[in-house]
């Protein structure tokens, strides 16, 4: 349980910092090109706790899936899980692209960032979380 919690906290911190750096800073101008699809900045800041809850939920779901079926495979299994989850997310993003007028460039850049995010999260979770049996052997 201790390693589960540490893996969750580490994954959450990384996802939060990466989200701030990549989406909040690097892609700031690209997001601005589709301003009509987003809330005004002040309104977004007022709902910031939803971002925290969402990122915590994402990190928790990742660690739960890893612990349920991937644990024991170490970092490689974590990376594999991260890649599969991001490809699933890209599938959902294609469906979003069909329904919402996002610029394709923005969704491609978000997907590139998503791959990096999920792969590094996989490395972090795979390195920290070990099932009880693996630790005692």
């Amino acid at each position, binding site marked *: *349980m*201790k*390693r*589960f919690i540490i893996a969750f906290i580490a994954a959450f911190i990384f996802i939060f910092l990466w*989200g701030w750096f990549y989406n909040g800073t690097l892609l700031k101008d690209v997001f601005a090109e589709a301003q*009509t*699809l*987003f*809330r005004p900045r002040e*309104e*977004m800041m007022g*709902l*910031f706790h*939803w*971002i925290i*809850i*969402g*990122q*915590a*939920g*994402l*990190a*928790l*779901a*990742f660690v*739960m*899936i890893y*612990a*349920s*079926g*991937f*644990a*024991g495979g170490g970092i490689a299994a974590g990376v594999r899980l991260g890649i*599969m*989850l991001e*490809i*699933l*997310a*890209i*599938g*959902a*993003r*294609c*469906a*979003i*692209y*069909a*329904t*919402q*007028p996002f610029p394709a460039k923005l969704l491609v850049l978000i997907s590139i960032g998503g791959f990096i995010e999920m792969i590094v999260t996989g490395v972090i979770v795979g390195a920290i*979380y070990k*099932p*009880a*049996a693996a630790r005692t052997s």
Partner: protein
Amino acid sequence: MKAPGFHGLTKKPQQTEIMDWKKFFIAFVAAFGFMFVFGFIWYGKLMQGAHMEVPALWRPEADFGSHFSWLVFGHIVMAVFLTLLCSKFVPAGGAGPCAHLGVLLALVYVGNDFITYAVQPLTMKILCGWIVGALIQFGVAAAIIGAIYKSASPATIQVPKS
């Protein structure tokens, strides 16, 4: 924390599961069919009123029609990788264990939905609808896959006696 494992997931080290590609394909087609039809009914029909509260967020009808192939492609990608995840990590199959995996995968989407709610002008009704929709869509699709797909009989690797 002890890794609970999905029921039927536990592997004996001497055995390897063989992918049954015919069942894999049938499971994928069934999952795709369910996800697409459910998505059309849930998001396209039942939630249409909620979506129309923020019309600026959506493509006009004609524009949506010209991007429809992306909707189909996205569902194919989701169905393929959901089938792959279920077949690789619940090789013994079974609707229950796969539904469990499907619900956990839906929680990843739920996390993203919360973030989307913070940055896009969605209503709370849309957020709740998307969350319930993701849980049903992935839970049931994964259960369908689990009911159809089982890996072929495990091949026992002969360990030479030393």
